[in-house]
Structure formats: C-alpha cells, structure tokens
C-alpha cells in the first residue's frame, strides 16, 4: 500500500493528485521550483521540497533532485502527472530502482508506447485498424515518396518521438513531399532529439476520438468510454467533450473493446488513453497511446463517476480493479474548456502575469480544476494552462448552455493577462460545433471567424438565446435552429472539405 506519495509536477494536476491522495488517506509530498514556492499544492502538502530554479530542466525535469526529495521525505510512491517526466521511461526505471512505486505503466511499455512507430506496429499486431501507411521508420525521401505514391495523397509525415502537436506535416502533392520530409526530420531532431519519421495517409475531415482505459497489474482492463477532442488548434486540444455523439452505441462499444484489447496486449497498467481518428462513416483508426493521465480526464470522470486518479493510484499500489466493464455506465454529456493564459488574437502567444482577479465559476455540475489562486502569478516558465472548466448535463445541448453560463461567470484579470474564455464562448455558438459536425481541422480553418465572433462577445456578452424545441442528444445536422442574433456580422467560415457523412 502507498502511505506517502510525492507529486513530481506542478499546477492543476499536482493539486488534482493531492486531492485524490487526501481522500485516500495518503500523505502528500510536493516538490516545487523557486517560482512555485507559494503555490496551491505546496500549501496543501504535508511536506514540500524545493527542487530547483524556475527553468523546468533544472527543477521539474531534474531527476536526481526529485528522486532525492522522495527518498528524503520518506515517500514510497511518485505520481508524475502529465507532461514533464510522466512519459520518461528512465525516470520510471530510476524510481523503481530506488524502491519507489511509480504511478504509471512499466518502463518498458512506456518506452514502446512513447515511440509512435513502435506503438503502431504493436497495435497492428494486436489487430487494431491503422490508417494506410508504414509501421517502420522511413529513412530517405525517396523511400517516403514511394510509400506515399502507394497509399495515395494526402499523406502526413510524423515524427516517431513527436508529441504535443509538434512534428507533423501534411503533404497534399507529390512535389511537396521532399521538402516536407526534410523539414519534419529537422524539427523532430531539434525538438525530440530523434529524427525518425514515418508516413501515413492523412484523413481529412476526421474526428479525434480517444478511449480512456484503466488496467491493473493482474491482467484486467476496462474502458471508461470515449472523449471527442476534435476542437484543436494546430494539433493542440482546446475543448474536449464526451461522449462522441456522432458514433452509434455499437461503434462506441467496439472502440472501447479494441482500446482495452490493445492496451492489455502490450502489458499496459494504470490509466491510459488510446487515440483514434474516426472518419465520416464511423470507421476508427488507431493513432497513438498516451501512457499517463491526461489533461482532459475530468470529462470521463463526470460521465462515469469514476475518480480516475484514485483508481490510478490504487492500481499502482497493486490492487485489483474493483470495477467491471458492466459497472461503467457513461451518463449524459460533459464538456471541458481549457482556460489558457494565451492571447488567441496574437497567435495564442502566452500571456502570463499576476492574477489580480480570479473569479472561478461555480454552480450545479460545474467543476474548475486549477493550481492558481487569486493573487498568484502565472509564470512564463511553464505551460499556459490556467485551469480546466468542466461541466456535466443530461444532454449535449444543456451541457453547452451550462458551459456558456459558467464561462460568463468566470473573471480573470491582471496586467498583460489574456485568456481563451471568449474564444470558447464563440466556439460554443458556432453552428458546426453546436450541430456536432466539426472536424479536427475546423479550428485551423475557421479561426478568423471564431475570433471575430469572440471579439463581438468580449464586452457584456449575453447568455445563449432561448432554446427552441426539445432537448436532444445529437441535434439534427440539417439546420441551425437558433436565431442568428449572436452571429451577426461574422466573417463567413470557409466550407469544410467534402466528406462522405453517411
């Protein structure tokens, strides 16, 4: 059993893990950099250890200091959160070597899933559907062009070690291939220190659907339903929701089954996410696996009532899963909006600063996960996630209205501080988003229109107009039933590329 756990992270996820520990009766050891010395998790923890200066490389990524902190503070387990060292197999291995329980999968499995090419090969062997492409790394542009010719354009060149939306290039014409190949390799080498790339078919007009899985160390695994994360900006998720209303119940069940099968086939343990691309027919293709708790895990928590971080810790401690697949019954609809300290009108440039006002929304089925309090400073040294606003409602339409209400309640003010709040309100008013017919390229394509709408909302934005007609899980995609009041004067968004929607 785990008695004292060190959280090797900061911000909202550190607070989230600390809360789960409190409820489990586990003592909390926080680690912090110099700029985080007065952070929320430090105030919550039983013990806090200063591990380094603000630069992540010398604090939250500095393995010796973190491991020493765990040993000095008498911790018997380490939770890595997401980002930082969460997918570093060396860190997991060092923890194990020092007798610390690492809350995550075995290091070898983490290593396999961390390499996208290896993960693709293993999942192909497990029988999961993959997009046409290659599993092996592509070494030369000629080799890549031959593969692209075979699978057909458009294709996407991806860094095997890529992540966080970086290291991917879409190629639409054969004559652009060589340059894309060279550029992606250069980016991969510079950012991920591994120039390995692979090539697969690029699916346009697809949805990003991911399945939450939970596996114990005794060979049991369950799926906790799916999340749709199609609202992305340059492959970075902005708004996530569940369930994926565009899938039939049969497609959902099958996707869940495939995800659990894939995870168990590689010996995965703990909480993980299998990411798929889903085309207009509901056919799903495995993309990658995230071997950690994810930012958007609260969506699944609200749908299923399962505390994923708690389960993750218990499974790491060696306990058998107490939940069976039939116990997991997702209900209603949940939406998460990432509230980032960024300025969407300036290319989402980080806009950190002191939070002179931080008024957090509240009310029925409204959750706000954050590591910041009013008066705290958002440091430029770390990611710009200020908090995650998550709501639940019996159906998607009510969830959209609840989210808009909660976003309207939220106030974040400070010199130089900008957020994505207005952008989210504008998104929730977009006819394609409301009708749940957007795709993963939607935001990149329609950003100017969404930003224009956000600007017109910025002043005293009213709530959503009154609902017309009954509530439905998936609104009919034929016409937007809402009066066009809120979208007056908007820049028309270019139509979405043709896609068979049947």
């Amino acid at each position, binding site marked *: 059993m785990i008695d004292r756990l060190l959280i090797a992270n900061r911000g909202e996820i550190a607070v989230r893990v600390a809360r789960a520990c409190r409820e489990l009766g586990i003592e909390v050891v926080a680690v912090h950099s110099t700029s985080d010395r007065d952070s929320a998790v430090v105030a919550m923890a039983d013990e806090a250890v200063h591990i380094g*200066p603000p630069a992540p490389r010398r604090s939250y990524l500095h393995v*010796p*200091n973190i491991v*020493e*902190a765990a040993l*000095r503070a008498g911790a018997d387990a380490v939770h890595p959160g997401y980002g930082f060292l969460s997918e570093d197999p060396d860190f997991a291995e060092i923890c194990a070597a020092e007798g610390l329980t690492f809350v995550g999968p075995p290091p070898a499995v983490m290593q396999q899933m961390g390499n996208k090419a290896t993960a693709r090969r293993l999942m192909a062997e497990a029988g999961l559907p993959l997009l046409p492409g290659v599993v092996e790394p592509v070494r030369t542009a000629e080799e890549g062009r031959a593969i692209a010719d075979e699978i057909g354009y458009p294709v996407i060149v991806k860094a095997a070690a890529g992540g966080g939306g970086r290291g991917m290039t879409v190629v639409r014409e054969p004559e652009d291939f060589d340059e894309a190949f060279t550029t992606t390799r250069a980016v991969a080498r510079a950012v991920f220190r591994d120039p390995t790339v692979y090539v697969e078919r690029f699916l346009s007009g697809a949805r990003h659907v991911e399945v939450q899985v939970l596996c114990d160390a005794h060979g049991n695994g369950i799926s906790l339903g799916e999340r749709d994360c199609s609202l992305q900006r340059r492959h970075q998720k902005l708004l996530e929701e569940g369930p994926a209303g565009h899938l039939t119940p049969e497609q959902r069940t099958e996707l869940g089954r495939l995800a659990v099968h894939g995870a168990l086939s590689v010996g995965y343990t703990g909480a993980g996410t299998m990411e798929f691309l889903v085309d207009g027919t509901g056919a799903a293709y495995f993309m990658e696996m995230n071997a950690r708790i994810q930012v958007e895990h609260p969506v699944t928590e609200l749908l299923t009532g399962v505390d994923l971080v708690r389960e993750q810790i218990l499974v790491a401690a060696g306990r058998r899963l107490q939940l069976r697949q039939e116990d997991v019954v997702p209900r209603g609809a949940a939406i998460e909006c990432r509230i980032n300290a960024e300025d969407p009108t300036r290319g989402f440039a980080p806009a950190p600063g002191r939070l002179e006002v931080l008024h957090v929304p509240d009310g029925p089925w409204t959750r706000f996960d954050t590591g910041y309090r009013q008066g705290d400073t958002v440091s430029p040294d770390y990611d710009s996630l200020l908090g995650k606003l998550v709501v639940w409602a019996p159906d998607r339409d009510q969830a959209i209205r609840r989210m808009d209400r909660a976003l309207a309640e939220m106030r974040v003010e400070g010199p130089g501080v900008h957020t994505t709040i207005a952008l989210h309100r504008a998104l929730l008013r977009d006819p394609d988003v409301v009708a749940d017919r957007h795709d993963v390229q939607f935001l990149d394509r329609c950003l100017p229109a969404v930003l224009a709408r956000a600007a017109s909302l910025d002043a005293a934005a009213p709530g959503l107009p009154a609902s017309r007609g009954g509530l439905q899980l998936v609104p009919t995609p034929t016409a937007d039933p809402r009066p066009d009041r809120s979208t007056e004067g908007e820049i028309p968004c270019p139509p979405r590329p043709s896609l068979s929607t049947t």
Partner: protein
Amino acid sequence: MATSELSARSAGPDAVDDVRDLHDEVVALARDLPGGLRRLTVRDGDRAVEVEWATGPAEAPAAAVVPVAAVVPAPVAAGPAETEGTAVRSPLVGTFYTAPSPGADPFVRVGDEVEPGQTVGIVEAMKLMNPIVVDEAGVVADVLVGDAESVEYDQVLLVLRPAGGPR
C-alpha cells in the same frame, strides 16, 4: 570507492553522433582521472557519469571526491532575516555532511577562515558525493544545517562573513 559526476555534454546533431561524442568524452575522462579506475557507469537519461575508483591502499575514500563545478555559493538575498554575510546554499536536494566521514573532524567550524575553493561540506544525492566549495574568502559565521540532515535546493547551509571584519 567514491563517485563523481560529469557536467552535461552538448547534444550532437544526431543519435549516432551523440554516441560517438559520448564515447570520446568517456575515453578522455578515463584518461584524465587520477588513480586506478574500477568502473565507469554512463547513463544517458539524465546524463550522469559515475566513476568508481579502485580502493587504493594509500587513499582514504573521502579523499577521492572530485569537486564539481555545480556548486556556486549565491549572495544572500536581501531578506530581513539575513542582512550580513554571504550564504552558501545547497545546489541540489540531498543529505548534508559536515565531515568527510563519520567521526572525522568537520570540514569547517564557526570561526574558521576559509579560502576560495575550500570544501566546507558535502551534499550526497543519488549516491553521488557533491563537495560544497566556497568561491570567496571569509570566516564561517554560522553553520545552519547539522550533519546528515536533509537539505533542499537553495537552502542556506552556512553563512560567511568577510574576513578581518568585526567579530
């Protein structure tokens, strides 16, 4: 036997180059190190290099500690509590030792004069002994951490006051 660490090497342009660079550096290190080596452990994850010396008859274990460049005493922040002197801070998380080995005399006592480059303590982390070296002369005004106590990053270990100043 004792251990030491090597500063981070620069990342090569390619994985193959990395390995080659690392190899060259390890060979150079093995040549440069004094005494008979027993084992060199190279880890690429956080780029640690562990050196284990053959236990020579003449050499006491603690004497084999090689100073590392990581230790930089920082000037005392202009806080209300410490208005005088220079704080010597821990550059890492670990266990502070005031003496080279259990039962031995401490490196320094209150009132001792120290010279630049002098070792005033050790912080052990991940089984590596990291000497704490002062970079300016002074007199030890206070030792704030006891032997074998845990220290965190930036914690003040001892305070120096200028040499020749009023007591």
